């Protein structure tokens, strides 16, 4: 410890790593830069592509040797690939946050909000954490088709008893298919009211919201009626 007075083990490790790896690895000592870089890598990993860990390891080596801007500039094919994965995951997460519809239930204890969405990538924890922040005091349940999860200071699988509690017929039902939800009808009426006929541009609508998402949302039927 005498060689690094006043530093903790983490900073010593970072300093040694920086000294050992290359002249452009100073970013290792900048917590914000580290966090941002790790965020990109985490998203890329979530894409679940075969061989991802090998490519990511290559990118980490490049970042240590050449510096972060080299990676951010996607100068190498590996960095480009990692960014493509990360961007795809980030786009999907943004759509999940916006397009998952929640169905309110009142069970025992806290009010419940149930959402259903098939997921391309492993984003259950991020989506649940988003809704948990948004609706404090609520129990957030997410049905991905492969499993049913809830947020309770982390992701947990939901047990069978939960369905007894709120009524078994709810299981597997898409929130948008709930005929009894008056607010879904109101929402559809509202959506209809916002259409300006003089501005119709369905090809642009299809670009910003690809057709595969139309099944998720009740107003998808309306969009479909305009599509060629």
């Amino acid at each position, binding site marked *: 410890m005498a060689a690094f007075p006043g530093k903790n083990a983490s900073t010593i490790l970072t300093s040694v790593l920086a000294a050992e790896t290359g002249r452009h690895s100073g970013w290792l000592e900048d917590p914000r830069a580290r966090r941002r870089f790790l965020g990109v890598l985490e998203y890329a990993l979530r894409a679940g592509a075969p061989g991802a860990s090998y490519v990511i390891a290559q990118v980490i080596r490049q970042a240590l040797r050449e*510096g972060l801007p080299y990676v951010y500039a996607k100068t190498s094919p590996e960095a480009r690939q990692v960014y493509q994965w990360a961007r795809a995951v980030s786009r999907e997460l943004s759509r999940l946050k916006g397009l998952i519809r929640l169905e309110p239930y009142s069970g025992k204890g806290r009010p419940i909000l149930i959402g259903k969405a098939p997921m391309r990538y492993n984003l259950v924890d991020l989506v649940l954490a988003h809704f948990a922040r*948004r609706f404090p005091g609520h129990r957030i349940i997410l049905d991905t088709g492969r499993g049913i999860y809830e947020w309770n200071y982390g992701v947990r699988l939901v047990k069978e008893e939960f369905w007894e509690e709120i009524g078994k017929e709810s299981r597997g039902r898409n929130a948008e298919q709930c005929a009894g939800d008056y607010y879904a009808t109101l929402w559809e009426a*509202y959506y*209809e009211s*916002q259409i*300006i006929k003089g501005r119709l541009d369905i090809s642009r609508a299809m*670009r910003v919201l690809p057709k595969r998402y139309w099944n998720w949302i009740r107003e998808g039927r309306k969009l479909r009626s305009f599509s060629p």
Partner: protein
Amino acid sequence: MDTLAKLAILGEAAKYDVCASSATSGSGAGGAGRGRIGNLSPAGCCHSFLPDGRCISLFKVLLTNECVNDCFYCPNRSSRDVPRTSFQPEELAGLFLEFYKRNYVEGLFLSSGVAKNTAATMEDLLKTTEILRERYRFGGYIHLKILPGSGEDYIQRAAELADRLSINLEAPSAGRLKNLSRRKDFEKDLLERMRWVSKVQAGRREGKVRLSAGQTTQFIVGAAGENDAEILGAVSRLYREVSLKRAYFSAFQPIAGTPLENGPVVPILREHRLYQSEFLMRTYGFAYEEIPFGRDGNLPMEIDPKAAAALRRPEAFPVEVNKASLGQLLRVPGIGPLSARRILSLRRTYRIRDLEELKNLGVVTGRAAPFLLLDGRSKKPETAPKQLGLFDLSVLDGEVPADGGLPW
């Protein structure tokens, strides 16, 4: 009238109001968190899209479409024969919260016609917002419209409750506004209120003011006979004088039963060009004088304003990617603020040598290549750029070199 019928009427009545983004990261006084329902989204979030591709992020609705004003363009003008209705503040707040819980919307954009008088309607608008903030403890995004002629105390209270306030100017000057409304006083009813909002916003850090997304305004494009230079000139002044966050533009669409029903339909492209130019001033640091208006004071339709501005200043190009300043890079077509910053960052440790590297940084190389040098050399993109139409110099009213070609 039941809620469904009211919603259809009051949603439709608000559909021409524009509120593109709810992105804000600040929370301000009484903000998100602390056990409140709802949060502010730092990057904006689209919850649906209309068949024209516009994002729906906010529940955009009028409290009432009853109105004592006579604005010539407005579907809610007093003399127009349309079904009139109103939401009660409790009813609207409850409806919004149910929409929010189902994740249909990111926040609320609340506007209104002037039912009996401005004060009474402002009170109802504020009451709706108070119910959301105080009874339902809603901590998410609210954009509140300030009615023309509202009192200073209403503006103060609105700033304590809302994340964004807006007052629609509709026209760029008092003279132009007279073509749209007999009752509204441009200076007193609108500009003075915008100054009050700015004053309240300036004291944000000290008091209870929330207003994390500032104030905005909206112009109806083409209804008052104004040109683009007048609109963007007004926007430029508002940035300086009232700290305007951004301006919205709505291409005029004639509405049956209004005095302007036979007015010309304004092409959506004109609205688009105004947005592009406003972005240049707000995000790219362009001065108003750099915006490339034609002799009639309008923006060229055939070419985007940034490319037109670059073609008008041949002496400023090409710029050397490895030496150019941020301002120079931002004036190159195909380079945006993010890619310009990436270039600056990469240049510290690495010399950029080819277009592929620029492409990876997010530069649209097809557009940018003719305006750039890489290590002192001009490089052509491998594929022919789609934007060749950009060099259709006839659109620039002859204000380009007589040789008709690029200057390098």
